[in-house]
């Protein structure tokens, strides 16, 4: 029996290795896509940087929705917290871009802590409603505190110093894009480690059955709160990046609309893989950009049609479609 058992463990081992290689290939693909964007669309780097910033927001939603099963329609509160924190710091003389990103991450994490502490008191629909209420409150706070935030005019004219003291933020947005892309890549790799850690596994367990997790002797609340903080840091970095690259922070960065759009992007790409967050963001924003240029009047209709088509054809998002194709081959 023992001999048999050992033989079985050995034969089962290659699967884990296969997964590891998949991530290396995935990350290489992201690098290729990022570089391709840089070379192919030199006139659209501002849009690409915007996509990178929103991708960070969508990744942060995936952590909460995809890995923990907590639905939220208020994630832009964390994105906006990062954007405003970076913007206010910048106006007040902290202009070093990496420091601003760090400030954004810290502000986002703090906002995530607050948001998590409130949202995790409720469940299901009530939780979703709370998330909307929180983003509306953040929005109102940013609107009312116009002395710091510029109110509905926004916070404009951020002068960011050169990256590492060398690379100026140029008119074409090259520096901003490359910095943003490097940041996204770094965050993505870090998140891949986090979701593969014991903590990540615990979150996946909580998503499926919190009662079982408690019966395993693990508390649910602190684990979810921790994920809210991590998620907030990621969203906050996205906000800071948006602030640095556009040199403006507006009320739209802390809006319900952005929260909802970002959730739609995640559903479009697929939950719980991290790749889905990237794919969904690129396709949604790329499609939006293209269609709004072709038909400025009916582009929303077309985006809606795309969404319906994807949700009907692949309820698990576009990544699940890829999963299905691979499954068919194997």
């Amino acid at each position: 029996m023992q001999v048999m058992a050992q033989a079985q463990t050995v034969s089962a081992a290659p699967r884990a290795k296969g997964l590891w290689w998949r991530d290396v290939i995935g990350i290489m693909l992201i690098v290729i896509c990022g570089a391709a964007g840089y070379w192919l669309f030199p006139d659209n780097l501002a849009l690409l940087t915007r996509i990178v910033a929103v991708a960070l927001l969508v990744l942060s939603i995936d952590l909460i929705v995809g890995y923990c099963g907590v639905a939220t329609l208020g994630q832009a509160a964390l994105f906006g917290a990062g954007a405003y924190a970076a913007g206010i710091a910048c106006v007040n003389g902290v202009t070093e871009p990496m420091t601003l990103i760090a400030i954004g991450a810290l502000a986002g994490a703090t906002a995530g802590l607050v948001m998590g502490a409130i949202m995790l008191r409720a469940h299901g629909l009530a939780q979703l409603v709370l998330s909307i209420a929180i983003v509306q409150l953040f929005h109102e706070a940013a609107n009312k505190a116009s002395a710091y935030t510029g109110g509905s005019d926004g916070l404009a004219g951020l002068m960011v110093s050169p990256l590492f003291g060398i690379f100026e933020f140029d008119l074409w947005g090259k520096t901003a894009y490359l910095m943003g892309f490097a940041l996204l890549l770094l965050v993505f790799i870090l998140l891949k480690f986090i979701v593969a850690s014991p903590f990540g596994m615990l979150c996946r367990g909580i998503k499926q059955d919190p009662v079982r997790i408690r019966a395993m002797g693990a508390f649910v609340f602190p684990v979810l709160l921790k994920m809210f903080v991590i998620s907030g840091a990621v969203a906050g970095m996205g906000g800071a990046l948006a602030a640095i690259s556009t040199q403006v922070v507006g009320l739209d960065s802390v809006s319900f609309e952005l929260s909802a759009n970002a959730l739609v992007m995640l559903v479009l790409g697929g939950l719980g893989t991290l790749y889905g967050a990237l794919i969904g963001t690129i396709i949604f924003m790329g499609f939006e950009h293209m269609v709004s240029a072709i038909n400025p009047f009916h582009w929303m209709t077309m985006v809606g049609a795309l969404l319906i088509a994807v949700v009907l054809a692949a309820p698990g998002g576009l990544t699940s479609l890829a999963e299905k194709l691979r499954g068919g081959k194997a």
Partner: protein
Amino acid sequence: MSDLFRVENLSKSFGGLAVSRNISLSMAEGERLALIGPNGAGKTTFVNLVTGQIKPSAGRVVLNGEDVTQLGAVRRVRKGLVRTFQVTRLFSELTPEEHVTLTVLQREGKASRILSRFRGNSAVADEVHDILATLGLLEVARRKVGQIAYGQQRLLEIAIALALKPKVLLLDEPAAGVPSADTPRIEQALERLPPSLAVLMIEHDMDLVFRFAKRVVVLAAGGIIFEGLPSEVAADPKVREAYLGNYANARSVA
């Protein structure tokens, strides 16, 4: 006072309905106790009360001389009071190996680490391997739980419980829903439980109860009506009335 585990006058009512009345029982280290009773007798409610899923209206739960009545479910698990579920509660997308690894990591306080690899700890991996081997689950160790047989899922429930190194284990119908061909594997697993572990088993399969338990407690309408040896239980008039009554009457009429 030498009891490892003791329940004193445990009661629970939902509104006016008493589902547990004044239940008292105690278990010593290594004891094998079966809790039986007709449907709706309050057996699962009793397990939920003991493990802290629901709060009792009155009474105490004492583990190792310590009153744990006010502790939540998680803290009771950490003290060594562990249960399995009547209907398996497993993560269909995870493998048995992942279930047990997560449980062992939790027991060692390493389950919420962010920057360590899930399979990075070889001591944990060895322990997981041993637990899965004991329960004969190695062949399906890396298959998703949703794809393994129900009998194997039941064994995994026990594997998770054992990975917590419990002092008292409550098995809520460990063989429920298992095809009779697989019941011997469950029984084998029960026989191999650590000798020092106090085990309380709820079970409908009387053959299994008689082979497993040294002592039987019968619950009816939320209260204990019999406590004694398995050989005596069938002869007890109260038990016959509550548990076998309808069946016996039906036969005598026919």
